[in-house]
């Protein structure tokens, strides 16, 4: 396990900032700066090579690129057909396949993606330490119960769309030797009834287990968002460690969103790593024990009016994670 950072804006300044903090592995969400993505959604290998070269200049490696399947609400998706089962999905999947092949050709090992309809629903913010604002979800405060543009989406509908997608892209990923890292559904919503009629089947540990079993492939796995997994649990302190061991030992953890929460299923705050319910050092050890070997990157950080760009919050989280990794590795090398 090693320190990484997920970056939406790969300017030279941002790359230098990351390098200064000791980051050597990048998950790149920026397909614009190096003109990776063409207008039609396909990717060009030269762009991928450019971003690799620029990171290499700072001693950093592009471990992961983000497919254009973000954690956004369905109407803001570039490729909405995939998760809505629309007629457009076949042509969308062709583009994703091309992206995978281009990534393989450029020698980048992993793609991260979401299979998302609802975006990331939250119900406001909770005031935290020093007046920082923590992203908050409490199902009892959720007010919009209207159906979405997708209408009712049963678990069966959702699984059918997921399977349709995986059956077509995972073989391509195997051929291209590119691992596909899927983010679970953030947050978990009621298993019966869902949220706004949408059943988020990747919002439970059982759902994640079923998901990885759909395709028995070493290239099919998870962007293991530890925060999201915590949000699925009644008792995150114990269940998250079990989930890490389960997926880690099966070689399914391709990268980690390393964040913490206070609370659990259907009611939580996204807090600083050192004040949540999950013992982050125990988590690091669980990854290591499980045999996982992937980047730990901070994900969401608290909002702060004295830190509009989030630089201080991210620097804090990177320092915290760095120390946990440093101590865990040094204990193991004794």
């Amino acid at each position, binding site marked *: 396990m090693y320190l990484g950072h997920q970056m939406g804006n790969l300017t030279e300044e941002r790359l230098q900032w990351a390098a200064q903090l000791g980051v050597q592995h990048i998950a790149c969400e920026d397909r614009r700066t190096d003109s990776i993505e063409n207008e039609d959604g396909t990717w060009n290998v030269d762009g991928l090579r450019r971003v690799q070269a620029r990171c290499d200049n700072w001693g950093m490696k592009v471990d992961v690129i983000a497919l254009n399947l973000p954690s956004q609400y369905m109407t803001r998706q570039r490729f909405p057909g995939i998760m809505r089962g629309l007629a457009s999905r076949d042509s969308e999947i062709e583009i994703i396949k091309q992206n995978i092949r281009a990534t393989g050709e450029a020698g980048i090992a992993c793609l991260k993606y979401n299979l998302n309809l609802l975006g990331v629903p939250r119900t406001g913010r909770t005031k935290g330490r020093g007046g920082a604002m923590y992203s908050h979800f409490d199902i009892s405060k959720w007010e919009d119960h209207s159906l979405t543009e997708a209408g009712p989406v049963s678990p069966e509908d959702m699984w059918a769309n997921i399977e349709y997608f995986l059956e077509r892209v995972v073989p391509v990923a195997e051929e291209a030797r590119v691992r596909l890292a899927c983010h679970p559904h953030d947050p978990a919503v009621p298993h019966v009834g869902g949220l706004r009629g949408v059943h988020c089947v990747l919002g439970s540990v059982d759902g994640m287990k079923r998901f990885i079993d759909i395709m028995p492939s070493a290239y099919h796995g998870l962007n293991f968002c530890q925060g999201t997994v915590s949000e699925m649990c009644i008792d995150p302190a114990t269940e998250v460690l079990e989930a890490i061991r389960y997926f880690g030992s099966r070689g399914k953890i391709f990268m980690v969103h390393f964040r913490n929460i206070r609370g659990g299923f259907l009611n939580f705050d996204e807090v600083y790593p050192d004040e949540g319910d999950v013992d982050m*050092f125990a988590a690091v050890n669980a990854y290591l024990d499980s045999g996982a070997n992937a980047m730990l990157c901070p994900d969401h950080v608290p909002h702060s009016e004295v830190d509009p760009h989030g630089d201080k919050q991210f*620097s804090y989280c990177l320092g915290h994670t760095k120390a946990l990794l440093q101590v865990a590795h040094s204990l193991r090398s004794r």
Partner: protein
Amino acid sequence: MGMKIGLGLYPHLLTQENFRYASQVGATHVVAHLPGWSSRGHRPVPADHPWTLDELRELRAAVNEAGLELAAIENFEPHHWSDVLLDGPRKVEQMAGLKTIIRNMGRAGIPVMGYNFSLAGVYGRTTGPWARGGAKSVGYVRDQAPAPDEIPNGTVWNMVVDADAPAGTIGRVSQDQLWSRFRWFLEELIPVAEEAGVRLALHPDDPPLEELRGTARLVWKPELYRRVFDLVPSDCNMAEFCQGTVSEMNGDIDVYQAIEEFTAAGKIAYVHFRNVRGKVPDYHEMFVDDGDVDMVRALRLYHQNGFDGVLIPDHTPGLECAAPWHAGMAYAIGWMRATIALIERNEA
């Protein structure tokens, strides 16, 4: 009660906004670096006026209001004690002012006064892209340091305290002269500190050269701290233990041994926790996890020897972003918080 993390704030940073930032990154204490500070905002106050009880109470209240503790004040104004350092004609008058400050601190409930008994002060360091990723940091590099010219009259700590001073320099100041001035300082002030319940905490000389600008330096080897403590034995005669400076000391120096010795002796009031690469006359300041010193081991030694005081990151290389200093401090504090928590539960 274990080790505590503080943030050192310079005068212009002593604001509610920065107190909120300190809390956000998990600091519980503030060390106020006070020279240049005025509780009256931009209205100038005479720099030689001893800090009043009201001013100190106001400062502490502002820190407390943000949910933080004021751990220490760092450094007198040069005007407060220039003649104490220089053995000048106003030294008795200035000493009365220092005593007033210490008594006022005691009444205001500020437990530690950090100081640096030095004429040349922090001098001769340069800045360059020396830290990881080309981050700007400071260092002392013999070939780049400005000439160690003798100190002009009317100047201490690189600050002019008497603009009307006659031309010329203060000349050479020997070890004996310096220690004799320091002895007088301690003999006068320690009894007052004891009565006020304020600990005086001496910073070592940075850069730790035996002599700089023709003037002797007080603590430029770890063992000189022993001499400091023996000079006027008292629980109020302590160290502002700058681990960074101790790491920079040349010769057969063992920073870990120094940490153990002075922690076990109960002589560390608070710690400047920073990392460096190299030693005088050539060293650079580094990120906390990236220098010559094994910082996990260092923290373990403070803990094992019973230290339960405050550590501040002291300095940081500047990060390439809109808030270079703040982000750098946030990184250091994040690292320290994780490591201290693991050490205190015996997992590191």
